[in-house]
């Protein structure tokens, strides 16, 4: 038997080489995909965890209220617990602690009866968090440094000694003496938000949770942490943060650590006992590992789908090759049967041959898949993600290769032992029925698969399910099979038309193509491979476009700088200079809609931005043909606010009078706007309305500010009656030539909630030698509580009325809003009336959320007329930042975290845990092209071998070799062209109905915005051109060789 197989292999080596090639390609594809979901996935996890942001992997232990004697041991034990939880990963720890408030010597804060208190803080890495202005860092016990603002307020300089006395609302403890050795300035973004006073340095009227009365708090006095825990002072809060070194993680260790962290609270409580009142472990590490796991599952689902598609393609090619082989060997098989060879012996021979093919294919495919995988990891998506590896062999890969090769070899065996159908030029009724049944079943399965994909929940599981893995292959195969049904009638129609021609070549070519079933034997493979290739290219494009859409919508703009501290005047100019783009301050926070606080702890999001520049600032896909400029125009204010220009550091002078003897005072609040639209409020001290002048502190701390609103809450002792008040604010000229009114529509009004407490509000502007004077007057009713609202408001704009807003589709659905609906959203503590003018699919930077988009200026105006002059800002948005260095320059400002549309898109596309998707998609296209070309060459070769006598007889009829070549080329082109067109159509159809459903987010949920099919015409045209050229070239070569060989020798052989 082995001899027969060996001799036959020598005689039919080209055929066997083709079979071997197909099996090898299929097994290589499987091996490569296996490496993508195993080796690359493991590496991706390592890189993802190693590159994870500290916040995503750090473990922080918060402890509260530690008695002085226990502080040192609590700190040490906390470090030990958290470090052990992170084992086997090494971890570094940092700690910070703050004491409870302690009494300051009254001499340091004179002029008030409110007690002055201060606190100590100890930080492990203080020099990394603050900049030393003067003096030195603490070196010895008792050394302390102060924040610049604290030092100024308390008048402390290096060298001064301070005694911190009794603790506020706590048992008596010894005083703590410290020596001020330096003054520091906190660095932004270095965790000062965790300071009890958020590094403000002081807080007037501060309410400590332990003491009901307000105190004036100062601090921190920054000392060495080891020093702090040895002072005996009661520690109010202590944080120990451990940062694990995950530079070389593996899944098992990560899961171990995640489990240890989940149980760390219990162990911590057991270790610390009653030495602390509160102990809590906080870490995102577990959820980070889980998120990485989910993301890997999503990626694996796509890679597996590609592997299945490749496997189906290889099996289809192999079925074709097997059938052609069986047809060519039909005579030999018949002879062997006639000589007495049993069916079992025939099967044994076929199994032996297929087994040898599988063995050789596996031996070739194992290194080939390693090389292809290594090559793939050198391509941009994987290379950029740091996933580049050299060729290597894994057990899973070998298993997949051998399994795939054996499965494909089994297909060969089955085809070899099945009864060979008669090679007639028409199919039998049974064949037609069988094929129709198979096509119908495919179509039913494909339709069911599509429906399952279509109906899958929006928040589907990330795990790869059979539908998501099998659906693409099923749909493409069914599509290709049905397309073949369309191609054949089309060919027959062309055949009928061709017979009107006078010559022989064209009608004969089309007759051969249309009337011989064997002519389209490779039809399913050609159609499927073309469909798979075009689908692969389009899915790749659809996936990338979806990631870009998600990235754009997620960030909402080109560059977002999310602030870690409140902005100050001039920040906008700094951001603008750094990024050279269109800059706008942005409000981005949760809000309440009327009494509705959102669902499941997910409040409605309010996004407010300068909508007059919506086109430059907003990103994300809108529905239909609408653009952000068009939408922004519906939200933008009708006119810009100009206000009054205020010179930098100019002394604003305020004076006021009140009729009668009742002592009245106002606490003036001013709202100033810079060139970027940032508004900052400035509050002055109480101004008695007795004619005295008050110079306001430096409200205009930057150049280019303009006064746009003034609020004057009137404070009165309990009294009755009404009093006419008048307040004049003199704004020194900024040196410009503009008129006092400056085009602004200054309006005076009485702020709610009891506007009738202030009546007859008026404002007049006049030019004086000292500048522009704003004279605000009103009649104030003094009845009622002394702190009742009696606020006179002057604004450089009229009351805007309800603010026009666009709401997300989810907002409209959950709130029941529609264009024209009037609602109230709360900003801070101020309800703002809004009117819905548009419903958009989703709001930039709030993908899929219940969200409201408004103009920031309009929102500010609506709040200002109610007397709320605060202007909450959470971020700077920059449209069209210039140059690649904009991100670095913006980051260097240390104002907050920077995110860009490009970086988010790059993360989504090229993140290590996702890079397998584009990698696999780039694998399927060349694999499909290779299998298609292999199938075409095999088919054409076998077809021409079978028809060699027929070709020779055409010569006998007087047809020239050139004519015969034309017939054969025309015949094959006539089959291939419509098949390629049909395959492309199937690929396009599958792209339209399936590709968007296959795109999922990291968590397995549907992407927001929803993915849309993307058909990249240039790439598709190039692919089709390559396939067509390759097919025609292969056919031309084979036909030329065959025609040259078609000589008289063939005429001796009877068919």
């Amino acid at each position, binding site marked *: 038997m082995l001899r027969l197989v060996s001799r036959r292999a020598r005689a039919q080596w080209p055929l066997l080489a083709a079979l071997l090639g197909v099996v090898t390609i299929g097994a290589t594809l499987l091996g490569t995909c296996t490496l993508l979901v195993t080796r690359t996935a493991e590496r991706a996890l390592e890189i993802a965890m190693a590159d994870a942001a500290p916040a995503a992997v750090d473990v922080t232990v918060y402890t509260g209220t530690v008695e002085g004697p226990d502080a040192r041991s609590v700190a040490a034990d906390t470090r030990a617990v958290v470090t052990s939880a992170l084992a086997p990963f090494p971890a570094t720890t940092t700690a910070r602690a703050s004491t409870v408030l302690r009494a300051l010597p009254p001499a340091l804060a004179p002029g008030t009866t409110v007690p002055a208190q201060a606190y100590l803080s100890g930080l492990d890495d203080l020099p990394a968090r603050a900049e030393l202005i003067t003096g030195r860092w603490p070196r010895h016990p008792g050394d302390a440094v102060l924040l610049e603002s604290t030092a100024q307020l308390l008048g402390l300089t290096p060298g001064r000694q301070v005694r911190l006395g009794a603790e506020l609302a706590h048992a008596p403890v010894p005083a703590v003496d410290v020596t001020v050795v330096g003054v520091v300035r906190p660095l932004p973004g270095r965790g000062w938000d965790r300071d009890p006073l958020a590094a403000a340095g002081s807080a007037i009227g501060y309410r400590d949770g332990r003491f009901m009365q307000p105190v004036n708090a100062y601090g921190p006095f920054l000392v060495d942490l080891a020093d702090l825990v040895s002072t005996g002072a009661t520690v109010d809060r202590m944080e120990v943060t451990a940062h694990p070194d995950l530079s070389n993680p593996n899944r098992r260790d990560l899961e171990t650590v995640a489990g240890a962290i989940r149980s760390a609270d219990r162990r911590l409580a057991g270790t610390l006992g009653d030495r602390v009142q509160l102990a809590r472990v906080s870490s995102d590490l577990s959820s980070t590992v889980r998120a990485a796991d989910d993301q890997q599952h999503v990626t694996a689902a796509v890679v597996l789908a590609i592997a299945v598609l490749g496997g189906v393609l290889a099996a289809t090619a192999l079925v074709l090759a097997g059938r052609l082989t069986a047809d060519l060997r039909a005579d030999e098989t018949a002879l062997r049967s006639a000589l007495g060879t049993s069916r079992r012996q025939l099967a044994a021979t076929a199994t032996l041959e297929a087994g040898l093919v599988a063995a050789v294919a596996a031996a070739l495919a194992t290194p080939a898949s390693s090389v292809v995988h290594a090559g793939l990891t050198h391509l941009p998506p994987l290379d950029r993600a740091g996933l580049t590896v050299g060729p290597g062999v894994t057990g899973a890969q070998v298993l997949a290769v051998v399994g795939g090769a054996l499965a494909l070899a089994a297909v060969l065996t089955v085809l070899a032992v099945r009864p060979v159908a008669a090679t007639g*030029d028409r199919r039998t009724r049974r064949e037609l029925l069988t094929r129709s049944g198979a096509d119908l079943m495919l179509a039913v399965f494909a339709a069911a698969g599509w429906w399952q994909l279509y109906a899958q929940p929006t928040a589907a599981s990330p795990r790869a399910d059979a539908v998501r893995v099998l659906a693409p292959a099923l749909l493409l195969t069914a599509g290709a099979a049905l397309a073949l049904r369309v191609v054949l009638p089309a060919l027959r129609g062309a055949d009928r038309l061709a017979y009107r021609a006078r*010559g022989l070549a064209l009608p*004969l070519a089309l007759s051969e193509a249309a009337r011989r079933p064997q002519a389209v034997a490779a039809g399913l493979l050609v159609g499927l491979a073309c469909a798979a290739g075009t689908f692969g290219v389009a899915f790749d494009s659809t996936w990338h476009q979806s990631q870009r859409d998600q990235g754009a919508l997620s960030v909402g703009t080109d560059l977002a700088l999310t602030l870690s501290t409140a902005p100050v005047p001039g920040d906008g100019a700094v951001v603008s200079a750094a990024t050279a783009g269109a800059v706008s301050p942005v409000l981005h926070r949760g809000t309440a809609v009327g009494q509705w606080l959102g669902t499941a702890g997910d409040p409605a999001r309010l996004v407010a931005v300068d909508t007059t520049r919506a086109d430059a600032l907003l990103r994300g896909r809108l529905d239909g043909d609408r653009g952000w400029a068009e939408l922004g125009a519906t939200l933008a204010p009708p006119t810009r606010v100009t206000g009054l220009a205020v010179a930098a550091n100019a002394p604003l002078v305020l004076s006021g009078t009140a009729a009668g003897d009742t002592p009245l005072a106002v606490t003036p609040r001013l709202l100033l706007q810079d060139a970027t639209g940032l508004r900052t409020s400035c509050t002055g001290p109480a101004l008695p309305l007795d004619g005295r002048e008050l110079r306001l502190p430096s409200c205009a701390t930057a150049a280019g500010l303009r006064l746009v609103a003034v609020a004057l809450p009137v404070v009165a002792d309990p009294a009755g009656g009404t009093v006419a008040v008048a307040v004049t604010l003199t704004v020194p000229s900024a040196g410009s030539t503009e008129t006092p009114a400056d085009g602004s529509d200054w309006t005076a009004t009485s702020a709610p909630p009891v506007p009738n407490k202030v009546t007859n509000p008026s404002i007049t502007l006049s030019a004086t030698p000292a500048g522009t004077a704003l004279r605000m007057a009103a009649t104030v009713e003094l009845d009622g509580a002394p702190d009742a609202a009696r606020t006179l408001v002057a604004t450089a704009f009229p009351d805007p009325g309800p603010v026009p807003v666009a709401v997300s589709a989810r907002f409209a659905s959950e709130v029941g809003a529609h264009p024209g609906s009037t609602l109230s959203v709360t900003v801070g503590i101020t309800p703002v009336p809004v009117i819905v003018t548009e419903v958009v699919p989703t709001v930039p930077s709030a993908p899929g959320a219940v969200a409201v988009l408004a103009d920031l200026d309009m929102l500010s105006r609506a709040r200002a007329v109610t007397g709320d002059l605060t202007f909450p800002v959470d971020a700077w948005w920059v449209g069209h930042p210039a140059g690649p260095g904009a991100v670095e320059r913006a980051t260097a400002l240390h104002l907050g975290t920077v995110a860009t549309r490009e970086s988010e898109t790059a993360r989504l596309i090229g993140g290590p845990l996702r890079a397998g998707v584009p990698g696999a998609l780039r694998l399927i296209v060349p694999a499909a092209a290779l299998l298609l070309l292999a199938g075409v060459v095999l088919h054409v070769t076998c077809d021409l071998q079978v028809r060699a006598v027929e070709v020779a007889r055409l*010569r006998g*009829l*007087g*047809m020239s070799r050139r*004519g015969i070549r034309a017939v054969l080329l025309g015949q094959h082109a006539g089959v291939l062209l419509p098949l390629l067109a049909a395959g492309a159509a199937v690929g396009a159809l599958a792209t339209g109905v399936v590709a968007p459903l296959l795109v999922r987010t990291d968590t397995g949920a549907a992407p927001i915005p929803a993915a849309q099919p993307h058909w990249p015409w240039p790439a598709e045209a190039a692919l089709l051109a390559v396939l067509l050229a390759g097919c025609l070239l292969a056919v031309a070569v084979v036909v030329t060789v065959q025609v040259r060989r078609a000589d*008289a020798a063939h*005429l001796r052989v009877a068919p």
Partner: protein
Amino acid sequence: MSAEPLLRVRDVHRSFRTGPTVVHALRGVSFDVAAGAMVALVGRSGSGKTTLLNVIGGLDRPDAGTVHVNGTDVAALDEDGLSRLRRETVSYVFQSFGLIPVLSAAENVAAPLRLARVAPAERERRVGLLLELVGLADHARQRPAELSGGQQQRVAIARALAASPRLLLADEPTGQLDAETGLSVMALLRGIVESEGVTVLVSTHDAVMMALADRVIRIHDGHLDEQAAGQPYEPVPDAR
């Protein structure tokens, strides 16, 4: 019959190399065939009959010697000239019929006419006449697989006559037919010689065919051994 023979074969040699072995298929074959004659070429399998027919029809080239068909030196023709010769002067009838499977009987017959770019109307008329001639007018739309062996051979003969050739080469045209069908095919060929004036050179083992021929040429190991027409035929030992 004109004085100038339609076919003149002179000292034709043709040998084939199969590995180290050289097979001499034709060794100095010479003979003439007058126009309008039906000549039977007989010999055992492997005696060189098919090679001789192929050399005459320009499907094969002699190693030495000349073949003149209707005054044209076949060996001197290039590929295009040979194609033209087969389209216009010489036609074939093969033992295995040689019909194009995907074409109907009428389309097969029309193939040479299409090669000659005959106008469609004239083509249809001629196809009808030829199918009438071979008695298959009712089977015009049937494909070869739907016809019997004899019917297929009749279609092949009709196709061979379609372009009005001067010389018809038939390579064992009855080799795959039963005796009765073979006889009818031979009668058809004889009739065509009579009615159309076509010269026929037919290789055969069939004694009846030889009896119908004007002349019998016997070939043995590449040499000719001519037998007078009408003389009793000695059956070839390995003849089927």
